[in-house]
């Protein structure tokens, strides 16, 4: 196994590398130094010494929104505001984790980036150019951006052998290759995702593979295209715990070796921390906070991020103190409706810090340095410090007491 850049992921390094908001992150630096024998052209394209003010994002989603119009069985139509004004930027070699609760629009955002959905508004920008909607452009686009699905069983046609999947990808994207060359590439690809002996795996059907192996095939298939960006929509959540780490390590390795940019969508903040450079948090279709992972996890600057991190299981947190740990957690309220989202800050109905303006107006974005930002009125009102001082549960309890006292 290659050496994943664990040390660089530690707090000290990350903060030094992401010194300014626009400077390249650790990932970019790593990508630059990575040798890239397979992609000389891509490496050339990258203008390594470009000054910092023109950030070289491979893929951007600029203020994209997606509204689904759903027609019920009885003909009722409703609009689901799945994603609202979200912005995502990926640099080469960067891994960005997208976390957020179920239904917050992570998948929808990824699918917009993979161009399964056209954004209702906003645009998708590939290497500085807005992508057109034509079918031809789509194929070109997909040779640079590939999506890895959550369920490796679902994303492999059970009727086709592993070889067919890889071969088709090569044939469609590298038309000049001969059959023998494709065969060779297939072997290479399988070896890269550690499916050895390659020949044996190439001849298997998906149902003969374990979940982890299947997901490797999916990744190999995506790699066959030689993309610049991988979008992983919960790529490991369907896998057994014991093999998840292997997949994370594999992704890490690919990033280091190929300088791939990776959007990693997950529920699992711990794994996000393990893998990524930066974290973006979504809530109810909106981005609420983003920044370097350690900054976000260690000192979340949005009440929802704080709730999320506090809710994530963490064995370290002391096994004994269970009652205190779960205290107050049963009063967290319901997730918001995306058909009729709350006004102002969408988190305000569940937020123990909510103020008057929270329910009225969307909070402004507060830049917190190091590329870390959050959208919360607490920052505008100078109450950000309260976030660090208390836990979500404690804040909720305090608020309830205050309310009862008032009434």
């Amino acid at each position, binding site marked *: 196994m290659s050496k994943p850049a664990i040390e660089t992921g530690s707090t000290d390094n990350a903060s030094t590398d992401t010194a300014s908001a626009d400077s390249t992150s650790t990932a970019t630096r790593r990508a630059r130094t990575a040798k890239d024998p397979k992609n000389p052209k891509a490496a050339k394209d990258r203008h390594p010494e470009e000054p910092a003010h023109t950030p070289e994002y491979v893929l951007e989603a600029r203020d994209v929104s997606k509204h689904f119009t759903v027609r019920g069985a009885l003909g009722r139509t409703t609009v689901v505001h799945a994603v609202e004004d979200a912005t995502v930027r990926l640099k080469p070699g960067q891994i960005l984790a997208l976390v957020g609760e179920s239904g917050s629009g992570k998948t929808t955002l990824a699918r917009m980036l993979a161009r399964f959905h056209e954004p209702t508004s906003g645009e998708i920008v590939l290497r500085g150019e807005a992508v057109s909607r034509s079918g031809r452009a789509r194929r070109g686009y997909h040779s640079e951006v590939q999506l890895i699905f959550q369920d490796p069983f679902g994303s492999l046609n059970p009727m086709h052998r592993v070889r067919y999947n890889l071969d088709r990808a090569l044939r469609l994207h590298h038309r000049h290759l001969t059959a023998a060359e494709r065969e060779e590439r297939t072997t290479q690809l399988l070896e890269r995702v550690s499916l050895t002996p390659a020949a044996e795996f190439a001849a298997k059907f998906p149902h003969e593979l374990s979940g982890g192996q299947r997901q490797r095939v999916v990744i190999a298939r995506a790699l066959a295209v030689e993309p610049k960006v991988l979008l992983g929509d919960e790529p490991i959540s369907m896998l057994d715990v014991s093999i998840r780490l292997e997949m994370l*390590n594999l992704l890490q390795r690919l990033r280091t070796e190929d300088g791939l940019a990776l959007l990693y969508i997950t529920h699992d903040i711990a*794994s996000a*921390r393990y893998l990524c450079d930066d974290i973006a948090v979504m809530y109810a279709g909106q981005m609420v906070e983003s920044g370097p992972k350690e900054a976000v996890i260690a000192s979340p600057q949005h009440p929802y991020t704080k709730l*999320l991190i506090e809710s994530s*299981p963490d064995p370290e947190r002391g*096994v004994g103190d269970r009652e205190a740990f*779960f205290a107050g*957690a*049963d009063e967290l309220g319901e997730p918001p409706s995306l058909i009729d989202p709350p006004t102002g800050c969408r988190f305000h109905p569940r937020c123990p810090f909510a103020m008057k303006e929270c329910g009225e107006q969307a909070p402004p974005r507060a830049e917190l340095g190091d590329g870390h930002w959050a959208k919360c009125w607490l920052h505008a009102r100078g109450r950000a410090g309260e976030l660090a001082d208390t836990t979500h549960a404690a804040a909720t309890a305090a608020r309830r007491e205050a309310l009862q006292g008032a009434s």
Partner: protein
Amino acid sequence: MTVHAEKPLQPMIPAGQAVLDVRGLTVEYATGAEPVRACTDISFTLRRGEILGVAGESGSGKSTLITALTRLQRPPAVTTGGEILFHGRDGAKPVDLVTLDGRQLRRYRWTALSIVLQSAMDALNPVMRIGAQFADVLRAHDRTLGKRAAWARAEELLALVGISADRVRDYPHQLSGGMRQRAAIALALACRPELVVMDEPTTAVDVVMQRQILAQVLRLRRELGFAVVFVTHDLSLLLELADRIAVMYAGRIVEVGEAAAIYGAPKHPYTQGLRDSFPPLHAPLRDLHGIPGTPPDLRRPPAGCPFHPRCARRTDGCDERLPLLLPVGRDAGHEAACLLNETDGDHGGETR
């Protein structure tokens, strides 16, 4: 706002008394020429009010164990050995659930042991109102209960898990995923069972909702005093939630012990691997590798210790002798099935 619904309850039952005694439970699937053993020789004791966590990889037999415990298995699953002793609240002689027939079992269902399934969407009848599904079971076990009273009780129960009373007339699909899951938990508590079995009740919801649900389970347990068997593949969750944890591998319990002991001093290489599969949320990151390899095919289990093909620390005897589940370590009730422990009693603790 949910607290008010609670009525005064019977005093907490002192812990330590067993409510369920499982001895040598073996479950097989009669498929193909050779039956598949999905659970082999499972033994454990569950005490009143205790939360027993069962962890293990996919296919390790957790669900099989659950359905066998609740006697809900269907063909081709067969319980081919062992006994499930249930100790009633009144101190009567324990009954072996395995020997009971369907009619006798109905007496114990829901009043003694109830179940929460993984996906509440599938577990609630899509064409019945939520309230009706409560009333159904309430009136089945209490024939004196009127229809109206049953619905009122359903409202109370829903309030218990923080669902407002007017939802009682909704159909399952009208509730959100989290609400459904909580409704399913409320339903499980409808007849004040002594034991609730939960099969991955939170895998379909996100962490915030998961926390919310678990907090409610804990609160209700405190108030009602039922014991819980909680099955999940997420060991890190169990470490926070369970009193004791049993780790299953290939249909066997390979280690069982207090949650703290399992986390702090796992005695089985598999448990160690499992524990180390969870990257930390706050502690410094290390290079982690999980457990390489794939779980065994239960149709052709490997000889000896079923884990040996994947075990980094296997020794000579591992592929020959099946290790027994033996007490290990310093903590009472901590047992593991690994040859390392048999040869060298003072083996654990060095892993960190």
